């Protein structure tokens, strides 16, 4: 039994932590999110040079050959700095989908570009009507003479503005809610018929509404078998949820640390407010919330390792674990965020203090790929149906 990160993982964790501490202070981040593009390309190049962009990819494509555990190690530290450069969009999601794809040509073209920092990518899945059910897809890809024509609208495409390439989920057959019939296409962001309208999101990042108007793609741009796109999404989703939860855990731990430190220095009634029992109880609750979240994250990692060895026995447990994890991240993230603001008092609701920015990233993570209720409902279906 072992819950320690390996020596290699500790090395990369330390490297990200050093970057956050030495180069990514709150003012630096503020300047980045106020800038035109909202990300720092020099930092992205640095991430590539430090090898962070290669972590989850197979060695045959120039990757580090890491597991989801390695990815989690990086994400937890990025969370501590609420780093806005599009690691989740490009490496975790876009890269994750590519890794699970079967189209070798796409993989060998795009994965090396992710790793060397020259390709930023995003996954265009969400539609105005679809909430959290990814398979609710109206965007169509209809067969034409040289391939397909994509028509439809995608919303809240994270980091759509800076993405060079998009993986687009479009329907090649079936009805709007069918899981069968969804296909994933690699589409250049500047392809004819693609129009991107971007806006800032509350977590300091950005998202886009993207219209596809007769965007022509060929068979070679399909990530896998036509109509079987959800298989790829399903395969990657546990890793995405684990990585997002790791980022959230980094944020939660940081919020707790900042808040406890603040109570030790803030004086009222001639004494540090950390001596007030009413506040101590709140901080015990947030401490426990953070530890319990960490435990579920580690549970998810252990289950992911088991499922990697034998998917036929491990997958059901892994899904239960990641649904429980994501629901808990949302619930406890809310608790920790609210308590951090409350315990800080008035200063807690100001833009100049960092904690509100951590809380807003937690709120975004909360809705990304399903909120607490969505995941708890999925958990219930897995656990109590056919009992």
């Amino acid at each position: 039994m072992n819950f320690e990160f390996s020596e290699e993982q500790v090395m990369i964790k330390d490297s990200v932590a050093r970057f956050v501490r030495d180069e990514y202070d709150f003012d630096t981040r503020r300047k980045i999110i106020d800038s035109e593009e909202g990300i720092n390309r020099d930092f992205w190049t640095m991430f590539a040079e430090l090898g962070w962009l290669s972590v989850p990819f197979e060695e045959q494509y120039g990757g580090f050959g890491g597991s989801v555990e390695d990815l989690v190690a990086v994400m937890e530290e990025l969370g501590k700095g609420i780093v806005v450069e599009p690691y989740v969009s490009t490496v975790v999601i876009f890269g994750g989908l590519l890794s699970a794809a079967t189209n070798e040509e796409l993989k060998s073209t795009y994965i090396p570009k992710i790793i060397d920092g020259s390709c930023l990518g995003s996954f265009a899945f969400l539609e105005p009507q679809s909430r959290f059910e990814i398979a609710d897809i109206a965007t169509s890809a209809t067969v034409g003479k040289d391939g397909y024509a994509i028509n439809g609208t995608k919303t809240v495409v994270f980091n759509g503005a800076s993405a060079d390439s998009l993986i687009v989920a479009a329907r090649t057959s079936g009805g709007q809610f069918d899981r069968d019939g969804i296909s994933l296409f690699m589409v250049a962001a500047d392809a004819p018929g693609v129009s991107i309208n971007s806006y800032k999101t509350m977590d300091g990042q950005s998202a886009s509404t993207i219209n596809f108007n007769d965007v022509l793609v060929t068979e070679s741009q399909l990530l896998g078998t036509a109509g079987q796109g959800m298989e790829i999404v399903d395969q990657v989703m546990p890793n995405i949820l684990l990585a997002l939860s790791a980022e959230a855990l980094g944020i939660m731990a940081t919020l707790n640390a900042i808040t406890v430190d603040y109570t030790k220095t803030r004086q009222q009634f001639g004494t540090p407010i950390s001596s007030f029992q009413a506040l101590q109880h709140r901080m015990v609750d947030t401490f426990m919330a953070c530890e319990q979240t960490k435990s579920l994250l580690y549970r998810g990692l252990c289950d992911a390792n088991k499922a990697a060895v034998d998917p036929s026995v491990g997958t059901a447990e892994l899904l239960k674990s990641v649904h429980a994890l994501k629901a808990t991240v949302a619930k406890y993230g809310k608790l920790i965020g609210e308590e951090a603001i409350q315990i800080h008092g008035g200063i807690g609701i100001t833009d100049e203090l960092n904690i509100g920015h951590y809380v807003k990233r937690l709120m975004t993570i909360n809705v990304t790929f399903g909120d607490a209720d969505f995941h708890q409902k999925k958990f219930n279906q897995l656990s109590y149906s056919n009992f």
Partner: protein
Amino acid sequence: MDINFSAQDLEFRDDVRAFFASEYDAKVAESLSSGQGEDYKEAIVVWQKKLHAKGWIAPGWPKEYGGTGWSVTQKFIYETERGAAGIPDVVPFGLKMVAPVIYTFGSEEQKAKFLPRILSSEDWWCQGYSEPGAGSDLAALSTTAEYAGDNYIVNGRKIWTTFAQFSDWIFCLVRTSKDVRKQQGISFLLIDMNTPGVSVKPIPTIDGKHSLNEVLFEDALVPRENLIGEQDKGWTYAKALLAHERTGMAEVADSKRMLSNLKQRAAAEVNGGQPMLDDPVFQMRLSDIEMQLMALEYTELRVFASMAAGGMPGPESSLLKIKGTEISQSIHELQLQLAAYYGGALQGDLS
């Protein structure tokens, strides 16, 4: 990261499982189910004697006094299997509370006199700490022991004394010196419950059971040889005991078993033609608990893994007690809710 045990540890787990399966049968379980009364005492003594015969009665003790010599991992596995099998823990007052004080701070005579009879369940012990005026502020206690000749003369009142009605002995904190800092003048005394001047008054509880008592001391004579360590140093010994009391109380395996029973009942309990287990609101209540328990299970494993690696438990070990108790309470509340009208008609456990 992994939660795998070594092959040797798995073999040990199988041994424990096999022993529990063969010895803790339905008859023993039934006899222990009431949790109170003379029958209960007899039943648990029978069970504890079986554990004693097997050599497993005191995993926490050093081997030289009758402990098992198990590793941290083996102790963890043993406790997990016990909880999973629904077997109650041993009565703690002798085996887990006073015995560590005796073997750590007691004289050779005291060790020889008391430890074997605790191991064999011949002596039952109870704990004389709380008083009407000294609860969480334990050092405010006022029961006095005045030294006269070869005896202490004890006067005062102890309260919330679990199983005093069954006990042969009580271990007490008593005040032997006044006019010093309140933690200083306290001594640790072992008192025979048959001593003239010691009497027990039951305190019935709202569940209709009797496990709590008041114990009164009126000029009770206690021989000096029953003093642990030095006079006025009892607080130090008691603190060591309290630390012992705090470890390993998440009761994850027990809660997992109870939750699994609850699900089976919820599948069988039908409301308007729909099993309660399919009711979306009930499912939310159930999964609120189950997800927390899944987290706590790993928190316990994390604490255990760090202790097995030679570390000391950190603040997350207190979480085990807090969350463990909250989860256990939530499961019981949901059982009561599931019982609906029958919940109000019940005395004692649901069956």
